[in-house]
């Protein structure tokens, strides 16, 4: 193992900021898969994810001097990646999509669930009912159909598995707003999964 391979991210970032190219390459190889996945989930497109991936690491490289080590490098890199993704989004004309509101849970006049337990549970088995390829295609569609503000929160919190605190900081909103957005996204996607698995909400 080279010295760089044993160093933690913050140490590597300091070395890279001082001009050590190998240290920067090590950071890229450690984080590229996660940044790519984040970018893909935000855009549902390989080409867009590639652009964001490149912009993120270029911005990180140019901004290394600004990384002070006060936060973890991975948290800082997330911020750089989110900025790159938002810049990228502004340059794109968003495809018009059908909203997922139709899949929100339904209640009767007394405020009780309109559906039966077996149907309410069906979304849990969407990954058994649909084959993997079908599910991947529809999951991509589900993300695409979420409003941006819900998608961003859901992707960071539930798909990238960041803490509510980290998501709040990244999106510049308070924790209650993060929870509210993630909640809306979960409700819509849960209903969408039910629908895919053959249950009308």
């Amino acid at each position, binding site marked *: 193992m080279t010295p760089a391979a044993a160093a933690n991210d913050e140490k590597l970032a300091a070395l890279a900021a001082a001009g050590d*190219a190998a240290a920067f*390459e090590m950071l*890229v190889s450690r984080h*590229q*898969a996660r940044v*790519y*996945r984040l970018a*893909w*989930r935000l855009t549902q497109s*390989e080409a867009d*994810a*590639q652009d964001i*991936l*490149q912009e993120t*690491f*270029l911005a990180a*490289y140019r901004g290394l001097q600004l990384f002070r080590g006060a936060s973890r490098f991975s948290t800082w890199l997330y911020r750089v990646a989110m900025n790159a993704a938002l810049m990228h989004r502004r340059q794109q004309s968003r495809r018009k999509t059908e909203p997922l509101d139709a899949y929100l*849970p339904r*209640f009767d006049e*007394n*405020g*009780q*669930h309109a*559906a*039966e*337990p*077996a149907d*309410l*549970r*069906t*979304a*849990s088995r*969407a*990954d058994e009912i649909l084959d*993997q390829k079908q*599910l*991947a295609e*529809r*999951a*991509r569609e*589900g*993300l695409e159909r979420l409003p941006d503000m819900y998608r961003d929160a*859901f992707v960071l919190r*539930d*798909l990238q*598995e960041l803490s*509510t605190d980290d998501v709040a900081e990244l999106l510049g909103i308070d*924790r209650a707003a993060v*929870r*509210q957005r*993630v*909640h809306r996204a*979960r*409700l819509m*996607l*849960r209903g969408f*999964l*039910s629908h895919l698995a053959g249950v009308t909400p």
Partner: protein
Amino acid sequence: MTAQLVCRDGVELLMDYLEGVLSETEREAIEAHLTRCPRCVAFVESYQQTPRILRAATAAELPEHLAASLRQFLAEER
């Protein structure tokens, strides 16, 4: 919040309940409701499974050719 919470109220509070940020009164109202509402039990299960299913279904791997072009891009730009 009373013990007479209905499904719709429970759904509205679900995320906060699972994150442990509800008041004790609200938490108890939800738990009391869950003990007598099989619909909500089923709903909560599917609500909790939704992130897991979507996570697995959107776990895009970085293709090798993109990793290679990232390296080339950075080498040229730096």
